[in-house]
């Protein structure tokens, strides 16, 4: 049984994460509203498509009229990190709760995975996930309502800037993840790691120019994986 004090600690952490996510959710709602989404559109997308970066990317690609196949591939690749999290988010105490596992698996997020203790009881993990899930839905829907309160002349005069925060969030998250990967690789010197990542970015830019931004994702991602694999990135660490 989990001690009561531990439970309180995890709940406080979940609430802190929920508060931190709130402005980002609000921003998503505002940007979605400026793209003519209703509060019910955003409610359903946040409930059934729960994935902050995935939703931002969907919004961005959809507004640029990318094909559904491109959006599917990109968001799938973006969210592929949930596979190992979902594999690892259960313990032996969870057997026999198949339906609950199916439903609560959908609530797994980077933040909940970082907070919930793996060996804790199922209800506590569900509570952590539910707090974050609820905060995200509430903040995105409130964002739509907030967006409706912004005067339309402000919107028309600033329409060229409205999607930039969504782009900035994705770029910052990407930069953080790349930085994390660089810092956690002790196989090469820093200069070699930076050269390698710069080489990958150069390859990606070249592909983008050659094939265009609608279809560059698949060759871009496969090519970068190939470069990293060729230079044996991470090989020593995972041997």
């Amino acid at each position: 049984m989990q001690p009561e004090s531990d439970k309180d600690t995890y709940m406080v952490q979940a609430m802190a994460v929920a508060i931190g996510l709130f402005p980002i959710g609000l921003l998503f709602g505002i940007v979605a509203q400026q793209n003519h989404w209703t509060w019910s559109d955003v409610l359903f997308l946040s409930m059934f498509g729960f994935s902050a970066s995935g939703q931002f990317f969907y919004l961005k690609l959809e507004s640029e009229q990318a094909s559904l196949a491109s959006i599917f591939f990109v968001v799938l690749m973006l969210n592929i990190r949930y596979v190992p999290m979902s594999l690892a988010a259960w313990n032996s105490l969870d057997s026999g709760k198949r339906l609950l596992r199916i439903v609560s698996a959908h609530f797994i997020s980077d933040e909940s995975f970082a907070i919930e203790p793996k060996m804790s009881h199922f209800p506590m993990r569900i509570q952590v996930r539910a707090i974050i899930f609820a905060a995200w839905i509430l903040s995105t829907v409130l964002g739509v309502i907030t967006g409706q309160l912004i005067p339309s002349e402000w919107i028309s005069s600033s329409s060229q800037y409205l999607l930039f925060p969504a782009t900035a969030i994705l770029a910052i998250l990407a930069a953080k993840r790349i930085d994390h990967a660089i810092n956690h690789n002790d196989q090469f010197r820093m200069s070699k790691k930076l050269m390698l990542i710069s080489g990958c970015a150069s390859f990606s830019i070249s592909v983008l120019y050659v094939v265009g931004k609608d279809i560059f994702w698949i060759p871009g991602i496969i090519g970068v994986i190939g470069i990293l694999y060729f230079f044996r990135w991470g090989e020593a660490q995972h041997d």
Partner: protein
Amino acid sequence: MIEGVGLLLLISIIVRVIPSLVGTSIRIPQRAIDLISIAVFVNMFVYCFFSEASKEAVHAALAFAVILILFRWNLLVTIFASTLTFVLSAHFLHL
């Protein structure tokens, strides 16, 4: 919009629900996950930059410079600073 809900739900089922049923009976090599993650994020950063730079090259370059300087700090501060840079440069720099 409905296709967006369906698409993201389908992806959630693929990456979260199905693995949760599999549990720990299969093991994806950690190195494969790491390489995919880096590749996705490198391409994402490049895509984000060029999607903005294709419209406003100088303003996007300035805003992304702010991102590269500040990204280790607080997420909201970095979003705010980079957006402010983008807006102010678009407003005051007429290149």
